[in-house]
């Protein structure tokens, strides 16, 4: 698993694109989202716990013969339990670079709030800030956060709050619990949630398209209507799927908005400002609305096949433009940061394109990059750009 390198860091600009453009493991993102829900936006970054393996949990069960009876009386039962825990309750990763070591628990399947107790922050997350994005989407709505919300009481069912972020099984409600939840809560009861990292509290995000954010909240509310009519694991799967879909849609829409911002300096579209929960259908009028053509014939209908491929090509073209637009805006931000009291807001940022020093600053930066010292080994990508520039200059001179 690769960390973020220098090039990634140079590209990241979460003011306009809050999610890192990289592979995301959705379950990890959701597990971390639960942490943020519980801690009201403060992540967990360290742990004092030893590394936990499924067999460690079996040992805990063996140590509690009152609550768990007959589960570890022979090796067959122990093995059965260990496999069951590994398969159905935990997400594990193999220890060691070759991946042939023991499987340690990265996090428990996020089917209950108590599962955050075993989230291991030492294991590098492939969350890519999706959990922060989701937290910012929902933090002002009463849909997911808060004891009166739809989701939080569902996620904390059968437990009572304990300390700042911890919880314990509520014995008065244990009889109402299904067998699987009871097993999980008994298993996690003696664990504690790790201390939160207050320095890394999630900052509020100014959404480039507030109406799209409203749509995410609205669709989630529609799904949560069915929370008592479907299995717990199923609901969590659907939520994860819904969040992934909407995160992708948000990105697709942002690509167009960011291109527009870079090209015209105009921030946000004129339609989305007035859109609220009651008028979400007006989103279809938005000129930046992403459109996807899905070929449900799986290529059997030539016309559908062509239209779907054309649409993908179109999205790729927009995405290609987006990389340039994003980088341009990032560089403007870099320039603007030299002029206090610049506040990093998008509105503020775009004013700097007319700044008197704007062209001179980038001219100097470009000269620095192009200047090559003797014996310097040049990054191949930069060399390719420089070669292209030289060729282009020669060609222009020849024309003259």
């Amino acid at each position, binding site marked *: 698993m690769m960390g973020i390198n220098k090039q990634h860091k140079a590209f990241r600009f979460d003011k306009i694109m809050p999610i890192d453009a990289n592979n995301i493991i959705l379950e990890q993102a959701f597990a971390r989202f639960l942490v943020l829900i519980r801690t009201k936006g403060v992540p967990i970054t360290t742990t004092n716990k030893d590394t936990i393996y499924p067999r460690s949990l079996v040992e805990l069960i063996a140590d509690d013969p009152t609550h768990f*009876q007959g589960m570890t009386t022979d090796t067959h039962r122990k093995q*059965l339990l260990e496999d069951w825990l590994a398969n159905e309750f935990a997400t594990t990763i193999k220890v060691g670079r070759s991946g042939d070591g023991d499987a340690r628990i990265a996090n428990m399947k996020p089917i209950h709030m108590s599962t955050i107790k075993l989230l291991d922050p030492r294991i590098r997350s492939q969350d890519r800030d999706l959990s922060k994005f989701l937290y910012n989407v929902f933090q002002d709505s009463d849909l997911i956060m808060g004891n009166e919300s739809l989701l939080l009481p569902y996620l904390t069912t059968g437990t009572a709050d304990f300390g700042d972020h911890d919880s314990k099984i509520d014995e008065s409600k244990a009889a109402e619990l299904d067998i699987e939840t009871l097993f999980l809560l008994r298993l996690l009861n003696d664990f504690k949630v790790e201390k939160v990292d207050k320095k890394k509290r999630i900052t509020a995000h100014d959404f480039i398209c507030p109406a799209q954010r409203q749509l995410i909240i609205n669709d989630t509310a529609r799904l949560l209507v069915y929370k008592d009519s479907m299995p717990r694991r199923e609901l969590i799967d659907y939520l994860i799927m819904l969040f992934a879909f909407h995160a992708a849609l948000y990105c697709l829409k942002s690509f167009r908005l960011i291109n527009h911002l870079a090209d015209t300096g105009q921030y946000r579209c004129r339609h989305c400002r007035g859109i609220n929960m009651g008028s979400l259908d007006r989103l279809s009028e938005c000129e930046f609305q992403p459109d996807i053509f899905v070929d449900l014939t799986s290529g059997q209908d030539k016309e559908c096949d062509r239209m779907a491929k054309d649409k993908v090509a179109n999205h790729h073209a927009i995405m290609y433009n987006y990389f340039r637009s994003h980088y341009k805006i990032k560089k403007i931000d870099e320039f603007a940061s030299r002029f206090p009291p610049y506040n990093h807001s998008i509105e503020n940022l775009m004013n700097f394109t007319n700044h008197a020093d704007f062209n001179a600053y980038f001219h100097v930066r470009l000269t620095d990059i192009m200047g090559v010292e003797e014996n310097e080994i040049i990054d191949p990508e930069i060399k390719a750009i420089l070669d292209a520039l030289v060729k282009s200059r020669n060609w222009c001179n020849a024309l003259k």
Partner: protein
Amino acid sequence: MEADMAGNHNPFVAKFLTIYSQSELSTAGTRGYDPQTYVDTKLDLKLTPRIYSPETRLVVLTGNAGDGKTAYIQRLESLARDQGARFSEQTDNGCTYKMDGIAYQTLYDGSQDFEGAKNDQILKEFFSDLEGTAEPNGAFTKIIAINEGKLRDFILNKREYSWLGRQVHHYFESDSFTPHKSLIFINLNLRSVVSDNENEPSIFDLILDRFLDKEGPMGFWNACAPENCSYANRCYIRYNIETLRHPDLGPIVRHRLKQLFYAVLFRKIRHITVRDIRSFLSYILINKYSCHQIQADLDRGFSVIDRFYYNAVFPNDEKDRLARTMCDLDVSLTSNPKLDNFIHFHGPDDDLCLQLLIVGHEERQDQAYLKKLFESMPRGTDDNDPIRRDNAHRYHRSLRKKLFFESAEDQMKAAGFPIWKDFLPYKKFARFSQVVHTREDQHFGLRNNLTLAISKSERIYNEIIGSENLCLRSTSTTKANTKGFYSFPASDFKVIVKDIGFQEEFLEYTPNALYYRYIGTGANPKNPVELEIPIDLFEVLCRIREGYIPAANEVRTFFLNLEMFKRRIAAKRPDKIYLTDDDSSLFEIKKDPANNLIMTKVGG
């Protein structure tokens, strides 16, 4: 018409051709009231007297196109006319008449505009006497055929129809609601063309009887007698009609044909309307050619084997709705190796073959065609001539179909062959049919079998645990070494067959599906969690119970309802979980009264 019957021509053939939906002549016979072929159903016997009862103010007929709404209303008008009713207005969309001091108004289609008048305006005028907050008064009765959706849209949530609106709402929303005595709602979509009530004939039987004109009051088939038609001994119409009119063979063929219509009904993928059954029966008996065309074909030696009823029941190239569905049930496509082998080596006039058929049938029009096909089959396994190979297929298929309808059960059994029921593509047809007709799952036998089948579809193979508990996999992971199953006691479920409440008084009805319903803790009778089981799903569940493992694409498409049902059940709170890593030794985890978790090995 008597004069026309002379000279190899039956004028009624042309009439029957117009009843077929894909007729090349005309489809005029598919719509409205036809006095010659209309049959009196329960609507006529039970609803008509209610309509003429003075307390009735409004009769609403809903249903699909072709369900017979207009025909029934026109029949009602015709009877009124015969009884001396005074008609004041008559249009193509209804009429008004007065009888015994009561004003009657009919509307054939309340869902369409008519002669420039907008639909809503027509309905407003029609329902004007039913406005208000109380039951209507006055000497009137209104009869309307209307689309259910249109009725909802027009009546519900309108202040002027507050009383009627309540009645309509309750009728739509509550299965057990019986409307006010002045109102009658009939949904013809619930009517079944095949039914087996001893006290009433089915619509299928009524229409077939009328078409066959067995006693001859309509004289439909007099012209087809050998003395009136020189083609009678070669004509398939004569064969088809006389087979079904035959005193011994006729009832047997009819019964087997009826089972095929039951199978269509039980598939629950197509509602069979009266128009559908009239159309298809017309096609089966008469096919789609005039006397002139038939004679021309016979004269030039063209093979008409596909037009004999037993082949026509499963037509490959017809676009008729019912015909296409029937092709899925083609009895020549199932396999019975011993019989198939016999057919290949025995001609239609072979004594062994003739012995399999019910005796006494004198019509032999199909023999020449079957014999020709048999004699033109490939000569040995090296003969790859495509025409001869096709002849072999056609002979084989034709004879299988003929045996399905005309074989004697005793003779087939004596020869060691499967009987007609074994030709059906559904091996569990009889069991399904039996529960539907008795409307009862005696001693929960079927409930337990279905429980085991659903459990097995989740890959739990312990028959005792699987039938005593509905077991559902806790995750969809297939790679896991250990399988976990949520467990719900079988006693939390029951198999039910639904009825249609008060409407059964007016409609011939056969339930078309079984329902496996959750009745345990938290069950909501108004919105039950239940699995609808039409015959296809029933068949596969029975096979799963016997060990069949469905392919992934079957699960994706065919079992969509089953998958949704399992999810709804899994949302209930299971009290037990079974774990296994080898399918043979199962461990049960459950809680004790103190909410501690206990694991025990099943069976000690």
